[in-house]
């Protein structure tokens, strides 16, 4: 069933599965979406989820009184709650359906995505969590603008944020439409509108508090569902990992090769590009960084990253069982395959079919409902982040110079949220039949090449200046876009040329060092008056970055 052209299809498929969210589902765009029959169990479970989360939104709306409440839930989320919510952003449909589907296709090679999504979190804890939490207030842009010249650096970093959020949103909406069409049998446009309306209800009324609880509930449901599915898979294998792997190797057309590398990917540079994009892109995602401000202090911020790692680590270990479980239990069963020899609904449906194989329609319905819920949670997080970029970073901090009218800011925040919702619907419908694989690639590469280097260097390099940060940020952004356009996803898949000018889908391996090099050069050669302030600010903010408010008071005595 894995044919000779499978290897050729992998980059496109992979590009759609790369992200730790739901944009994988745009993979359906390249294939024909086989709409499933209405699944009453799935719909019932999803309606229960919607009812509970709407009740939470109502509760949260009564607690959301200011823009700070709206953006950061008033800083009142505990480390454990925040960690679960962060994990909810990552243990998504892409992880459950996408990575499981890739393992079904090629075994071990599919796991590189899981490692990439996970490995960023130790670095988040070591490098960013504490300092970002101590120096910022609502977005990561606050952190860099304390060190560097306020307006220009805000414009660059907010541009990076908006590019990431909008592109992410398009990929999410198109993915959501296709996935829901696939799982629930709803028409594409209805699915897109439904997702937007629900997300707008959560976010407009409940802000970050409602968003956080939606993510927590979804994360717990997904962990529960995946654990049950893994338990049932292991039961089929007499609770022996050897029997599971042996059965998988015997069933898969590539045999024992699936237990090692080389079935889907062979080029080490290609793997390196994936690994760099995943790791450093995650460290620059604005809606993830924003979660660090929802807890009351730096201790809780660090705890939340650790708890997130625990949940995700567990989940990705479970994915090994699910992935190889699909090979062990689905191959050789004709009811799961179409007349063309491919899996019904495509490889992304492997986990759903596995749920059916081990848990019947009840587990299938449950996992389908959780997959839908995960889209809502991720889109809600993106919407809050986009609203904060416009109403806080631009309106409050640049236009009002940090002194906005509180009521006006909150009103603008809600209007911005509605605007983002409308944009999401329009773009989702506009891009229905487009090949948006490159749109799923760009956010991670841009986050790795623009947001991460500026944030990291502003926290750890005394020599960074505004001029250097802007030069590096602009070069990172432009080079990311250009290399993706001349790469296989746009140059070949969209524009129809025979061969790409740049051979890799994910250019962060090249654009990140380029951004760092430009930042370094323009910083060390900067002799402007502002550069003196920028360099001095590093030392002035050092204690505060490490000790928070206490460090700030200590600065006075030094």
């Amino acid at each position, binding site marked *: 069933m894995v044919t000779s052209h499978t290897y050729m299809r992998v980059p496109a498929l992979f590009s759609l599965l790369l992200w730790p969210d739901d944009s994988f589902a745009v993979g359906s765009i390249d294939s024909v979406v086989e709409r499933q029959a209405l699944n009453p169990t799935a719909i019932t479970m999803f309606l229960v989820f919607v009812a509970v989360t709407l009740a939470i939104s109502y509760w949260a709306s009564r607690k959301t009184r200011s823009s700070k409440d709206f953006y950061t839930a008033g800083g009142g989320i505990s480390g454990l709650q925040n960690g679960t919510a962060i994990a909810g952003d990552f243990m998504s449909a892409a992880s459950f359906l996408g990575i499981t589907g890739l393992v079904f296709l090629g075994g071990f090679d599919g796991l590189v995505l899981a490692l990439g999504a996970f490995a960023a979190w130790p670095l988040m804890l070591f490098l960013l969590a504490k300092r970002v939490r101590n120096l910022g207030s609502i977005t990561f842009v606050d952190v860099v603008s304390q060190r560097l010249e306020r307006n220009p650096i805000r414009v660059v970093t907010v541009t990076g944020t908006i590019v990431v959020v909008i592109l992410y949103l398009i990929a999410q909406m198109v993915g959501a439409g296709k996935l829901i069409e696939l799982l629930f049998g709803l028409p594409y446009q209805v699915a897109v509108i439904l997702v937007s309306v629900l997300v707008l209800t959560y976010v407009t009324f409940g802000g970050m508090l409602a968003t956080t609880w939606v993510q927590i509930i979804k994360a717990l449901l997904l962990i529960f569902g995946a654990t049950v599915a893994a338990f049932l898979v292991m039961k089929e294998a007499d609770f022996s990992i050897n029997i599971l792997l042996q059965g998988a190797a015997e069933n898969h057309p590539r045999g024992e090769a699936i237990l090692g590398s080389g079935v889907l990917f062979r080029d*080490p540079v290609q*793997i390196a590009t994936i690994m760099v994009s995943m790791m450093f892109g995650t460290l620059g995602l604005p809606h993830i960084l924003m979660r660090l401000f929802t807890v009351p202090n730096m201790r809780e911020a660090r705890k939340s990253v650790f708890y997130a790692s*625990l949940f995700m680590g567990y989940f990705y270990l479970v994915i090994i069982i699910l992935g190889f479980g699909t090979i062990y239990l689905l191959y050789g069963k004709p009811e799961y395959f179409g007349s063309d020899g491919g899996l019904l609904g495509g490889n992304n449906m492997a986990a759903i079919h596995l749920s059916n194989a081990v848990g019947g329609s009840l587990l299938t319905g449950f996992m389908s409902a959780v997959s839908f819920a995960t889209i809502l949670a991720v889109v809600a997080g993106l919407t809050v982040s986009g609203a904060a970029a416009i109403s806080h970073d631009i309106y409050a901090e640049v236009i009002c110079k940090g002194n906005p009218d509180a009521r006006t800011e909150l009103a603008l925040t809600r209007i911005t949220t509605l605007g983002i919702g409308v944009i999401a619907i329009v773009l989702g419908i506009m891009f229905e039949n487009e090949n948006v694989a490159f749109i799923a690639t760009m956010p991670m590469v841009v986050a790795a090449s623009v947001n991460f280097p500026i944030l990291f260097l502003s926290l750890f390099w005394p020599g960074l200046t505004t001029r250097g940060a802007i030069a590096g940020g602009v070069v990172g952004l432009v080079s990311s876009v250009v290399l993706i356009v001349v790469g296989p996803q746009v140059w070949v898949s969209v524009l129809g040329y025979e061969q790409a000018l740049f051979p890799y889908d994910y250019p962060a391996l090249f654009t990140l060092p380029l951004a760092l090099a430009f930042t370094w050069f323009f910083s060390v050669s900067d002799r402007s008056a502002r550069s003196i302030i920028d360099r001095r600010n590093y030392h002035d903010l050092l*204690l505060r970055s490490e000790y928070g408010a206490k460090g700030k008071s200590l600065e006075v005595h030094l």
Partner: protein
Amino acid sequence: MLRAVRRKTRHRLVFSLVILVLYFAYLFNYLPSGEFLAQRLGTSWITGSLAMFAGLIVMFILLELVFLCLDSDDEPDAKGSRLGH
């Protein structure tokens, strides 16, 4: 105090370097020098590659735990670390 900050910064960078080295060691799976990873471990069906994947996840979590233990000393109390947003 500044010396303590420098020590903490060194810790951060050393831990990060360890993570980066371990993470990119995964590339060995795709290099000729890492072909041995595709072999099964003894009589089991678990290959070196699969063991590496699971081992890295566990190792990363343990490193986070060690880091949290090392970094928790001489920290101001949680109340003192609140920032006036």
